[in-house]
């Protein structure tokens, strides 16, 4: 692996002006993705996962915009590129897959034409060569009789088949990074595993990295190399998937694990985090999780925690701050 990561996101802030003020769905989020790596981005709905993905690929809907931080692709800044340069990166170097395959394809255009136009937008190939590649791509994603199906319209495919087409479209110009935003949520459970396996295989074969946005801890466990946990637009914890899942450090991650049956493997102790994630309009002062956190200390209500290394991961929680640790130790020491 080279020294420069494929993607570097640092202190990314996305803001939306609304009537009462400014909302911040992404608040100083930073992480890296190395070439060929699969990073999971996990959190409740509204935690800012999708917004992160949209910010990286430069597709934030107006009036929202990136107001701080940087996004670097192979060391080059891409968050401030002119629209036309950014467009050349989209699809070519960073591709994106959306949640619902039923609505991701233009119903009035054949899948072949959608593939051909994507290929020809980014690669200097002839129409017939693009057509040939389109068929090859469809074959590769497992569409039977691809040569004839290439002229079919999206509604002639089933949901799972359509998501395969969507994957083919995302891979059409051989991108280095694919942002998959809940790619299997809208599919039947039986199809979900197939699509995830396909995504994983295709990316491994091409050496493409993936940012997998999901709220499904099972998918995270099976698919990702590293995982980043988002809470109310902020990064709570990031680290190797195994480390985060087996020994979560942030109280929110701990709660998340405890409420997920498949990963704890202990059905008896299934529990829920009390309360719900705060509305973006009402994020409390200090740590965003302080209202629901059983271990919150005074500082959690004052200052926003910053990411610090804890074991193999990095965690944004005051509990791991040396000052807090000594305090707690003194207290526990006193009671014993």
């Amino acid at each position, binding site marked *: 692996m080279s020294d420069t990561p494929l993607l570097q996101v640092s202190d990314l802030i996305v803001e939306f002006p609304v009537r009462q*003020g400014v909302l*911040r769905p992404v608040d100083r989020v930073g992480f890296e993705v190395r070439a060929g790596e699969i990073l999971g981005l996990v959190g409740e709905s509204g935690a800012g996962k999708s917004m992160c993905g949209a910010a990286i690929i430069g597709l934030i809907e107006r009036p929202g915009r990136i107001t701080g931080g940087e996004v670097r692709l192979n060391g080059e800044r891409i968050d401030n590129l002119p629209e036309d340069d950014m467009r050349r990166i989209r699809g070519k170097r960073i591709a994106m897959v959306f949640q619902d395959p039923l609505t991701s394809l233009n119903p009035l255009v054949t899948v072949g034409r959608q593939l051909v136009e994507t290929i020809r937008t980014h690669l200097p190939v002839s129409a017939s060569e693009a057509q040939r590649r389109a068929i090859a791509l469809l074959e590769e994603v497992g569409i039977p009789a691809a040569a004839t199906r290439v002229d079919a319209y999206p509604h002639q495919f089933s949901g799972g088949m359509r998501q395969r087409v969507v994957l083919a479209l995302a891979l059409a110009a051989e991108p280095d990074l694919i942002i998959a935003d809940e790619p299997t949520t809208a599919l039947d459970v039986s199809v979900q595993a197939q699509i995830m396996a396909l995504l994983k295989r295709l990316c491994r074969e091409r050496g493409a990295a993936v940012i997998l946005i999901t709220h499904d801890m099972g998918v995270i466990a099976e698919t990702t190399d590293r995982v980043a946990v988002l809470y109310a637009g902020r990064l709570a914890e990031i680290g190797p998937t195994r480390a985060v899942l087996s020994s979560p450090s942030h109280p929110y991650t701990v709660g998340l694990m405890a409420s997920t049956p498949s990963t704890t493997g202990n059905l008896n102790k299934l529990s829920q985090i009390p309360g719900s994630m705060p509305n973006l*309009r*009402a994020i409390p002062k200090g740590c965003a999780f302080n209202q629901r956190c059983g271990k919150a200390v005074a500082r959690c209500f004052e200052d926003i925690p910053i990411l610090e290394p804890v074991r193999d991961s990095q965690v944004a929680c005051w509990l791991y701050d040396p000052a807090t640790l000594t305090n707690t130790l003194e207290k526990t020491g006193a009671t014993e």
Partner: protein
Amino acid sequence: MDIQTKKGASARPEFSEAAPASTWQRWTQSDIWYSYKRSPVIIVSSLTFLALVLGAVFSPLFSPYTPFDPASLNLMNGFTKPLSTNAFTGDYFLLGTDDQGRDVLSTILFGLRISLFVGVIAVLFAMTLGVVLGLISGYIGGWLDGVIMRIADIQMTFPSIMVAMLLYGIGKGLIPPDLRDEMAIWVLIISIGLSEWVQFARTVRGATMVEREKEYVQAGHLIGLSRWSIMLRHILPNVTGPILVIATISLALAIIAEATLSFLGVGAPKTQPSLGTLINVGRQYILSGEWWILLFPSLTLLALALSVNLFGDWLRDILNPKLR
């Protein structure tokens, strides 16, 4: 950092929003009023409309002259220019006079009165008819619903202004010739009203069919409330918003329809000229240069139609953000 907020109240999390009883109050206070204050176009158009309505209602008080009293007319005053005093009679006319020597400002105020009267009554008529038919259609259903909706479908095939013209022709045919002028205004009102009921009926029907299935209506049945009392007291209040929007938009349409019919000579009679009639009179003088006879009534009509339209558009956006 933290979310910057202007109002402390809205910084609270969503689950602690106010109780249902005050939701309506909150909503009017915040959204509608807020939007109203923030859109100068809407403020101007609503004030324009208000001014026009007041001018029409109090036209006998405001009018400098009584234009339709033959005794007070002086043909010598004919074709006086705006902002000038007639050389022969010494009378002053702000907006000039027409061929008959009638003060244009006064005829506009009286014309506005006719236009607004026809428009408002026609819409009220259309609304009553549409709401009743919509309630019946949606609540009772069955073959009655089928018949009402087929009629609505067929009528919707044709533009409402054409329907109004046709109905006017039919109405005129039904009335003995010597009563035609006298009844013309009412024929006009009924024609326009009948041409506009479909929107009301469809909206009310749709809403009724949704409400009908809800628990409180079922409960109403159980405690023995009559059909009509359920419909009027429980279902109708739920569709006030959409009805209000349609009424506003229909008012603009009705005003334009009235003006058009009167302009074409198939509306308000010459003895009770509306804005459309006045514009038709004014048109005859554009070649000879007496522009004011045409221009001022036209501007008044435009201001009226535009202000109602803008207000209706705004109201629709506010009450139904999905359509924005």
